[in-house]
């Protein structure tokens, strides 16, 4: 039983597609109905996806090279950082979250602390100047009420 990646992904696709079909079945019919309706196309597409996934499970490709355990950890850290960035960009303004997140991402790519700090500060200030004054985008630099 080698070649697990394709099989697991295929299985996940089948599960998602089944949920998708179940949810498509629930779509309310409109009084403005046409011969095809709202349900048919989504159900059709999800069914094709299931067929493809079954082929993937039956005839999987060779296993890709997955990263080592500690690299997986650093990928998860980066995902968490980016999610955090999505939540903090509005309340905390541009400069602070950008400096922290881009510095931390830089550290994940190449673990040199001094370079990462410099990259974070430089990108945060440089991009802010670029966006605010050259491209004229409406960005807030700091949390409200600081200045």
């Amino acid at each position, binding site marked *: 039983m080698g070649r697990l990646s394709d099989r697991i992904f295929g299985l996940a696709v089948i599960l998602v597609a089944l949920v998708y079909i179940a949810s498509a079945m629930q779509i309310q019919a409109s009084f403005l109905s*046409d011969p095809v309706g709202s349900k048919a196309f989504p159900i059709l597409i999800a069914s*094709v996806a299931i067929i493809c996934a079954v082929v993937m499970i039956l005839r999987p490709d060779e296993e890709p090279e997955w990263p080592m355990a500690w690299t997986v950890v650093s990928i998860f850290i980066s995902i968490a950082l980016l999610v955090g960035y999505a939540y903090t*960009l*509005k309340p905390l303004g541009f400069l602070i979250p950008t400096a922290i997140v881009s510095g931390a*991402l830089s550290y994940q790519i*190449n673990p040199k602390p001094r370079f*990462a700090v410099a990259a974070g500060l*430089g990108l945060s200030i440089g991009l802010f100047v670029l966006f605010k004054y050259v491209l004229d985008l409406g960005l807030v630099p700091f949390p409200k009420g600081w200045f």
Partner: protein
Amino acid sequence: MDILANLSLGFGIALSPYTLMLAVVGCFIGTIVGALPGLGPSNGVAIMIPLTFSMGLDATAALVLLTAIYYGAMYGGRISSILLNIPGDEPALMTTLDGYPMAKAGRAGDALVISGFASFVGAFLATIGLMLLAPVLSNVAYQFGPAEYFALYLLAFATLGGISSKNQAKAALASCIGLMIAMIGLDPNSGLPRLTGGNLHLYDGIDFLVAIVGLFAVSEIFFFIESHGKSSAVGVTLDKVRVPWAEIWTTRWTMLRSSLVGFIAGILPGAGASLGSFMTYMMEKSIAGDKGKFGTGVAKGVAAPEAGNNAAAGGALVPMLTLGVPGSGTTAVLLAVLVTLNITPGPTLFTDRPDVVWGLIASLLIANFVLLVMNVPMVKIFVKILTVPPALLLPGVTMVSFVGIYSLTGSYFDLLLVVAFGVLGYLLRKLDIPTVPVIMGILLGHQMEKQLRDAMVLSDGDWTYLFSSGISTGLMIAAFLGFVAPIFLRRILSRPERVAD
């Protein structure tokens, strides 16, 4: 002479100082992004789209800027292919086969100049071809009804995997994932929400810009974290740059043949630039025979794929502008640009918005000359870009992508979706599932469903209506053949492997 009149209209728009400046800036940014190792045209355009819209440019200006970036990135891609053996995207892979050996032999400058010249010939001829062919094709497109459009979309999805696709099930699955995502949101026919799981943020559907930025830009950072910014290839330094006229002259027929073949490959829906550079390289290799020494660093081996992929880039604009069906990943991204600007590509585009079409064509011609100047005498400036460390570059690219999306939609939920698409893009690419069909599915899903439903309304639910006209039946058959062919051609058309160090 319709074309001349139209062209002068186009040049009237493109030669205004502001538009001209945008074209130059676009070429510059495009070449830089293309030259960055690991980034290609679709990344470049993807990063720049949200920013362009936030700047509030009008339709023509935005289009000129983004297509200049597109062409620029096609030119720039050869720099990292030749000097570092790292292709920015799939079409550039073929350039590494002879370009990198040439650079290792100390002829990096020659390789860059020859390929820059070949890019120019390919892109220039393709723009002329676009000018001549697009109006003709748009006349044919007037005969397209819902059944024909549905068949055309089917053809585009069936052939997206490409002639050299390794696994058609994966290519088809990618299209399905995109189409499934497109269905989320309000049903355009009934106006009722569907498949949102009750999440209010999803009522408007998932914006394809969010998907594009996630799949093409943010997913890159995970790859760089995985490799820790180390590239396996050894960089080659560039000494003196001079123009090897005699050698360029020996490649003249190669360039012309490759431009033609590349252009045709670009027009085919779904085929795009990868097929263009692949076919031209293989064609020239077999014409030259064993004596040609392809793969050891010969001028023709650099000229063929570069002329081919730049011609294909122009060719891919033909179906995108006339039918609204993109021929490659990057044209899919450009189609997204048009749709966002409220311009509906298709046959009516040429009569309704001649200013947009001909302004675009004229600025492509201008961009080509700008790029020739930037990429031959000024190539040394761009070579400097290669020394930017990934640990600075990738966080920068990610932040630019985020801010672009944020200033466009102002929603934290869209930023979360960008991250989700970034992770999805990483997983898909790891599993060798192409990401371009996902984008195409999200982009074309609504249209495809609408055409199917319209066709069924017209025929009162009779499914045979889909095969009622010669055009639609032909397209359906082509779709079937296009999907099945790679399964049989796989053994014959095996891709050459990358040059090892």
